[in-house]
């Protein structure tokens, strides 16, 4: 099980790789679309990368509820392992 810090760091790496977001900017309160300029298709790429890295499944209907970096972190925490 990854800790909250590990999840945040891992998510930061994915955001940098997929959407060119500077990891330091990926703080929990940031909205993917509003603050980090991540579009809906990049969200799909982030979801599949998160699935591979943390072993969680993020169905498309759940993906719509993940608006902020914090939402993603808590989703992974709840569903990992």
């Amino acid at each position, binding site marked *: 099980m990854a800790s909250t810090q590990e999840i945040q760091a891992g998510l930061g790496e994915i955001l940098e790789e997929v959407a060119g977001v500077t990891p330091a900017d990926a703080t929990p309160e940031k909205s993917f679309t509003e603050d980090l300029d991540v*579009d*809906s*298709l990049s*969200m*799909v*790429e982030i*979801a*599949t990368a998160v699935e591979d890295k943390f072993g969680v499944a993020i169905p*498309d209907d759940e*993906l719509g509820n993940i608006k902020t970096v914090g939402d993603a972190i808590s989703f992974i925490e709840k569903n990992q392992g």
Partner: protein
Amino acid sequence: MTTIQQQQGATGARILGLGGYRPRRRVTNDELARMMDTNDEWIQSRVGIAERRWAGEDETLVEMAVAAGGKAIAASGLDPDEIDMVVAASAGLKHPIPGIGPLVGHRLGIKRPGAFDLNAGCAGFCYSLGLVNDAIRAGSVRNALVVGVERLTDVTDMSDRSTAVIFADGAGAAVVGGSDEPGIGPVAWGSDGDQHNAIEIATGTGFMVMAGQAVYRWATTKLTDALFQAMERAGVGPEDIDVFAPHQANLRIVESMAKKLGLPERTVIARDIVQSGNTSAASIPLALTELLETGEAKSGDLALVLGYGAGLTFAGQVLRLP
């Protein structure tokens, strides 16, 4: 018991000629931005399209199919009499009866061909190619004309910016004939019917709706296997592929697939979507025709193609370009 006699077909089949038809009207992103809430930057970053072609009233499915088919026949060097099958692949037929295959054949001077329409969404061209490849090798057909033809603007809601910026019109055709040296590999095809409503013409409105995120995820994660299967069945690897021409649905899907395949630097990647939009079953033959006309691809090149779309369906194969 009387034995039912069988026919002997050709050892292999190959594409003898390709041809395309692009509608006259060119629609740029700036023109769309005057019609709906969108802009060039938004469209280019999401789907990679700079412009597309929209068919006029006189550019019907049959007229476009005849134009593309005629060019493919001319390029093949065959006489229309030597063709005995016509398959018209189209996903958005507004008027399904009668099918257009027989009329397209008649208009091209092909005498009484086996003719029908095939709807496998945007995968229709590759499904058709798989079928005629097998029919030629089984001896049911000597030469076949396959046309992918679409007027997606007929079934697109021009106030829905998620689809109106993407879908377009056009036709692309291939003449396929028997050959000693196989020029079409075994097809790798299948479907994921559990996602049948991810792309559909909605009952009531008659307009296409698409679950963009679901389709994007499917295309970028589930189709890589089909691409490798097509190469494996043909006995080739990524290092042998000269041209990669997947269905032109979204430039980001094209790039994602190319990256996952690990193609060599020299492989030419079809990006016809930039100037043509998504023309569904017409996109692969249109893209191949364009690459040959511009000289980016040449006769004898080995191409990997994959059609995929509504159904959800997919079909891919390795081809030798004519």
